[in-house]
C-alpha cells in the first residue's frame, strides 16, 4: 500500500467497516490515492465504506470524479458507501449531480 496515504486519507478498521478521510487532496490528481485506499479496503472485504468529509471544504470536478470512481468500485463489490460530515454546500452539489442517489449521508 502507498506509504504516505494515511496522511491524506486516514483510515480505521479493516474488517467490515472502513473510514477514509476525504481531505482536500480529493480535489487534485493526488486524490487518486484516496481512491486506491478505498479500493484496498474493499478488496480486504469491507462492506461499508465510510468517507468522512469533515476536513473537506470544497469538492470540485476532480473530487466528484474520484468519488464516482469509489462508488463504482463499491457497487461492483456490492459494498455500501456512506458519506459522513459533508458540508451543506457540498450536499447540494451532490444532490444536483445525482451522487447522493448512490450513497447514504450520515453525521458522525
Amino acid at each position, binding site marked *: 500500500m502507498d506509504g504516505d496515504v494515511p496522511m491524506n486519507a486516514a483510515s480505521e478498521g479493516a474488517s467490515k467497516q472502513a473510514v477514509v478521510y476525504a481531505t482536500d487532496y480529493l480535489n487534485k*490528481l493526488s486524490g487518486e490515492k484516496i481512491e486506491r485506499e478505498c479500493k484496498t479496503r474493499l478488496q480486504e472485504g469491507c462492506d461499508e465504506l465510510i468517507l468522512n468529509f469533515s476536513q473537506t471544504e470544497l469538492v*470540485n*470536478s*476532480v473530487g466528484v*470524479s474520484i468519488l*464516482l470512481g469509489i462508488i*463504482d468500485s463499491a457497487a461492483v463489490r456490492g459494498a455500501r458507501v456512506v458519506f459522513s460530515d459533508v458540508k451543506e454546500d457540498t450536499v447540494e452539489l451532490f444532490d444536483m*449531480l*445525482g451522487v447522493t*442517489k448512490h450513497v447514504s449521508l450520515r453525521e458522525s
Partner: protein
Amino acid sequence: MADERNRLIHTFGALAELGEEVSNKQSFQDTMRTSLHLLLGSLAIMRGGVARYSPFGHELNMLAMRGFRDDFPIALSLCQEDERQFLANGLYPIEVSQAKVLPFFQVYDHSFEQSGLELFVPLVVHEEPVGAVFLGQKATGEPYTSYDREIICAMARHIGVAILQRNMMAELERRAEENRKLYENLRMTYNDTVKAFAAAIDRKDKYTEGHSVRVGKYSEIIAEELGWKEQEVEGAAVAGYLHDIGKITVERKIINAPYRINAKESSELNKHPGVGYEILMPISHPYSDVPLAAKYHHERLDGRGYPDGLFDREIPYIAKIVNLADSFDAMTTDRPYKRRRPANEVFADLQRNSGKQFAPEIVQAFFKGMYNELTGVSKEKRFRRLLGREYMETEGIIPMLTNAMNGIAPASNLTFLH
C-alpha cells in the same frame, strides 16, 4: 433556479480548470488523467476514457480510463468508413446505441455494453482526427441533455488540443533527433576526412610518420586535462591533426633533409604555418580555431617564434596547446639529424621553457595527464601507445616528472608585460 446556477458554477469551474490543466507543463499522462476527471466530474458521469488516434495504425489507443472493465481493449481499430464519419461529426457526441451502423460500434459492441458506454466523442481539431472520448451514464441515470452535450463538446475541444499539441511536440522531438543524427554523421565524416589528411601530411615525411596523428592525440589529452568540454576537446584534436597541413606544399627534400637545413630552406619551411592557414580558412570547421592553430603553432610566449613573433596573450590558446604537443613529439621521436631524447631531458626542457616557449598551465596539464597514467589514476594507456612501453617505463620516471611539475612557475612571467 439556484440548482441551475450551482450547476453552471460547477461545470464552468471544471471548464476553467481544464483550460489551465492543458496549458500546464506537467506530464502528458497526468494532463490526460486530470482532464478525464474534470470532464467526468463536471457532469457526474460514472465512467469514461480518453484515447489518442494513431494515423499509422488507424486505431484509437486508450490514454486514460476510469471504471471500464479490465478487458476493455486498449487499442481499438478504425476502418475508413468510421474515420470518415468521425471526422464529419467533429466534436459532437455520438449516441453509442444509435450508431450501430458503423463497423466500429459493431466490432466493439460487447465491450462498450459491458462498460456501460453511452456517448462516443470523436476529437477533431483543425479537421484532423486526434482522438476520442468515451462516456458512460450519468450518476443521475438521466439521459444527456443538449446542455450536457455543449459542455462535453467544449471540454472535448480542450482535450483534443492538448493531444494535438503533444503530437506536434513529439514530431518536433523526432525531427530534432533526426537532425542530431545527421549532424553526428557529418561530424564523423569530417573527423574521418581530418584523419585522412593527417595521414597524407605525415606520409610526405618518412621520418615523422604519424607525427600529425600524435600531435592530435597529445592536444586532445591537454584539452581534456584543462577541463574542456567534449566538443572543444574534439576541436583541439582536429587542430593537432591538421597543424602541419601547410607542409604539403613544401618540397619533400626539405622536409626529409637528413641534416640541419640552411637559411633558404628554412625560410621555405617556415612558410608552412601561413600556407596551412590559407588552406584551412575557407573550410567550414565545426570547431572555430583550427586554422589559427595551423598559423600560430610555431609562435612562442617570449615572442621569438614565427611567423609573426607574437607574444604570450597575442597567441591563440589552441596554438599554444598544439605548440607543446608538436614540440613534445619532436623531442620524443627520432629525427633525420638526431635521435629521440630521454624522458629526464624532455621533462627538464619543458619545465625550463615554461613561460618562455610554453604556457606553464598547458605544460602542467600535459604533465598531469602523463602523471595520471603513470600512477594508474587514469586507466587509459594513451601515452604508452604514443611513446612506447619502454619509454614510459624509464627508471625513476615518476620522480622525474614530479620534479619537473614542481619546478614550473604557476603562471607565465611574461603574462603581465603586454
